[in-house]
Structures are given as structure tokens and as C-alpha cells.
């Protein structure tokens, strides 16, 4: 029981993050990746990477609003899985789609600004994934936090990448972008202060009440 209480959320996060990959492998084995499997893999891994990156960025806002601390460790888990999917996305592009054809890649990159931006996002995420360990956290000290603020940049790049590769229906990337803006705005100290006020007020009142109802708690804290 204790294991479930302390690790349940993390286990669930691992499973949920891995599921799309299992589904992908399953569909691949079954030949169910449409008539254009390379593109399908690219779309799915990209979408999953973006969703996990946003999930990672949603943990702190969730904590700010609800006060539930347990979600904070999920930042690292979803962030690392986001990087896994980004890597698959990048490898599918480099190895499967373009087969290391660097002249063609170079030529294409000039004409595909979305690919340049996507590659930039990958490069930004790379040091974050490498330094995601406790050891690196210790070694970098204060700078660890500074470095990991780059995840905001990566998320913005990812949204721009999503938007620019969209053929015509920009609604979905714009919705993702709007959600990202919300997730970032909540982090502004004044805003976090404001959105967490109801929770803190509620908690304070509850404490007051329980103190009234059970005065002995004052004597046996």
C-alpha cells in the first residue's frame, strides 16, 4: 500500500507515457500505419512529444492551483519521455525518411523552416535530458534551475514547429499555443499569487474551523 501511495502516480505516468509507443509498435507490427507509415510515425511521435512537454509544463500550474505537491516529480518523468519521443521523431526524419542523405537534408532545411525550428527545439532539450539526474542537479547547483528554464524556449519552438508544418487548418496548433501561453503566464509571480489565493484562503479557513471544532488539538498538536 505504501508503495502505491508513494510511487503510484509515477508508475501511472510511466505507463501512460509509454502507451503511445506500444500502440505505435503494435500498429507497425500489424501494418496499420496507413499507406504512408513514415509520415504516420512522424506525426504520432511529434504529437506525443509535444503533449508530454506540455504535460511537464502543466505540473507546476497544477500544484499552484491545487496545492497538490505530488505532481511535481512528474515534471521530470514527462519531460524525459517528451525527449524520448522527440528523439524518435528526429531519428525517423534523419534515418528512416532521409537515410542520412545530407545534401538533400541541407537543401530541404533551407526550404523547411519548420524543420529548422524543430531541430532547434531538439537541441535545446538535449542538455536538459542529459542533466535530468540527481547528480547533475547537485553539480550544477543554482545553475540547474537556470538551465532547465530552457524548457520554456523548447516548448515555444515546438509550438512554432507544429504551426509551420500545418498545411491549412491552424486551429489545433493555435489551441496548443494558447494553452502553452496560459501555462507560462501562471508562472508569473503575481499571477501565481492570485490563482493560489482561493486555495490558501480555503486552507486557512479549514484550519481555523477544525481548531474551533476540536479545541483539544490546540493542546495536543
Amino acid at each position, binding site marked *: 500500500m505504501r508503495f502505491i501511495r508513494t510511487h503510484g502516480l509515477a508508475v501511472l505516468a510511466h505507463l*501512460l507515457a509509454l*502507451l*503511445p509507443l506500444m500502440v505505435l509498435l503494435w500498429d507497425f507490427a500489424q501494418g496499420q500505419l*496507413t*499507406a504512408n507509415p513514415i*509520415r504516420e510515425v512522424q506525426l504520432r511521435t511529434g504529437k506525443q512529444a509535444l*503533449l508530454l512537454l506540455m504535460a511537464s509544463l502543466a505540473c507546476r500550474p497544477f500544484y499552484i492551483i491545487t496545492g497538490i505537491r505530488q505532481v511535481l516529480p512528474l515534471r521530470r518523468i514527462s519531460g524525459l519521455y517528451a525527449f524520448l519521443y522527440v528523439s524518435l521523431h528526429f531519428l525517423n526524419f534523419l534515418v*528512416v525518411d532521409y537515410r542520412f542523405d545530407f545534401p538533400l537534408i541541407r537543401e*530541404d532545411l533551407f526550404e523547411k523552416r519548420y524543420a529548422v525550428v524543430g531541430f532547434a527545439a531538439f537541441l535545446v532539450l538535449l542538455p536538459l535530458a542529459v542533466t535530468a539526474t540527481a547528480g547533475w542537479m547537485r553539480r550544477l547547483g543554482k545553475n540547474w534551475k537556470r538551465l532547465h528554464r530552457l524548457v520554456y524556449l523548447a516548448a515555444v519552438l515546438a509550438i512554432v514547429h507544429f504551426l509551420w508544418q500545418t498545411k*491549412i487548418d491552424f486551429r489545433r496548433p493555435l489551441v496548443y499555443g494558447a494553452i502553452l501561453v496560459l501555462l507560462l503566464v501562471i508562472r508569473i509571480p503575481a499571477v501565481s499569487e492570485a490563482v493560489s489565493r482561493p486555495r490558501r484562503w480555503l486552507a486557512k479557513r479549514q484550519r481555523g474551523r477544525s481548531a474551533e471544532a476540536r479545541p483539544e488539538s490546540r493542546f495536543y498538536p
Partner: protein
Amino acid sequence: MDKIHPSEITPERLYFSRRKFLAGLGLFAASTVITSACKLGGKEPGPGGFCDSAQAGATTDELGAGLTACNDIINYNNYYEFTLEKTGVAELARDFKTSPWTVEVGGLVKNPRSLTVDELIRKYAPEERIYRLRCVEAWSMVIPWLGFPLGKLLKDVVPDAKAKYVRFTGVHDPKNMPGQQDRYFPWPYIEGLRLDEAMHDLSILATGLYGKPLPVQDGAPIRLVVPWKYGFKSIKDIVRIDLVEDMPDSFWMSASPNEYGFYANVNPEVPHPRWSQSSERRIGEASRRPTLPFNGYGEQVAALYAGMDLRKFF
């Protein structure tokens, strides 16, 4: 569901995937049962049956590239009238009625006509044309169409001297085409050709593929096929053909004027504003192919554009 919490976004997607995964497991179990049952009967279940009796007069195009598998042609469709999901079109299009169907041919012509598709087929006797189809999204197919030259029909209605362009209109039927209920797009689908492009022998009105009448998802009952232009020019489900004086505004030009031009000739040298057109993936192949100018039909059609700056008239 009135309030969507940002942190709910991922779980929703993951739940969906899980559901799909579980559905997959269920499907696997079911298919095991069905295949073993069918083995007893000695017959594999076919996907809808269209491709069971697919036939074509050749196995390659004139450049030696193999035909795209029938199943891929009928299950990978860009047909926004139904859905933006390529693999979802076939299912949504299944019950769409394409008969009876009348095509009005009018505008600046001496003999405006109103013809059913059956009449068109009887009159113009479609023949097989194996064409490459290059999508603006950088994938391509080789498709054995059944069709007849558009020019024959246009000659029969006798265009006026003033007529410079041909405007095609697709059917507008939001009740039966769920994608058309989405007001994001300027329905109905409109396309256009310059009159000389329309009169070119390569431009056909197709009514079939792989030896059979067109499946709905591929544009039944009648569609345009202009093989040297990006696929979106080859409008599906045509109900009107008008000869006009001014260059028509097409669906894609209205939807995104900076990115889609009137000509839309396949050209590896002129990238889409946001992606390259220099190579393509042929459906069914793993590696990329270099994209050919005019999709490989330059010898026949390049003269139509002599002296034009193809970067400007994209």
C-alpha cells in the same frame, strides 16, 4: 466538460491511446477468431471488395514505376469535404450517393449542356490513363484512371471567344459531407484551369480507376485529373463546369492566398513557402524520389508556360 483544465490535456490523449490499444487487443482477439473461422471456409476477408477485382492494362507508368497498390489508393485520401484525416475518408464516404449525378456545363459557351455521368460515359467512352499524382504534401502515387479528355467535352459545348478559363465546382452537400459543416473552409470546392491547359490532351475527367467506377473517396462519380499539377488542382465530385473570362479564385487560393497559386504546376525548383518540393515519397516505397518538373510531363506541357516566370506564377 465546460472547463478544460490544461493539465487534463495529456491524460485525455493517453486515455484515447489506451482505448485504441485496448480496442486493438480486442480486435486482435476477434481477428484471430475470424481468421481461423475463415481458414475453415478457405477464404480471407477482403477490405470492402473494391480491390478484389481491380485490373489495369499495365503494371507500370511510362517511366517504369509500378502502380500504387489499389488498397492504398482507396484508403489514403485528401478529401476535406469528408474529413481532414486521410485514413478516415473511406469510412465516412461509404454511404454517399453519387447516382444519379448531373454535371452542368455552361458559362461562356454556345451550347450549354446538362449531362448525367452515365451520359458522359456513354458519349465519351473513358479509357485507361496511367498517371502519376503528386500531392503538394510531397507524397505521390501512380494511378490507373479511367477517363476521357476534358477537351472533347469543352469542344462540344463550343466556348465563346471571350472564354479564357474553365471553372470547376464541386458538390455542396453539408448534410452528407461532414467536412463541409466546418465553416473554416470556403465551401464549395472550386478549381480552375486556363482554357489551353483544359484543352490539353493530358487533362481528363476521370470516372474510374483500376478498371472500375471511382470509389467515393477518390472523387466519384466524376473528377478532374491534371497530372502535371499538384493533386489539389484535380477537383473531385464535379457538379458544374463553367467557361469564364477571368481567372477563377480556387478553394486553396481563397483558403491561403500566399501559399497556393492558380497554376500549382509540380516544380521541384519552387518550394511551398514553408516546405521543400524537391523530393517526394512514392506511396509504397521507403526511400524518397526526386520530384520531376511538371511531374515528369514537361515534354508535353512545358510549352504552355513558355516565357512565364514560374516562381511568380506558382
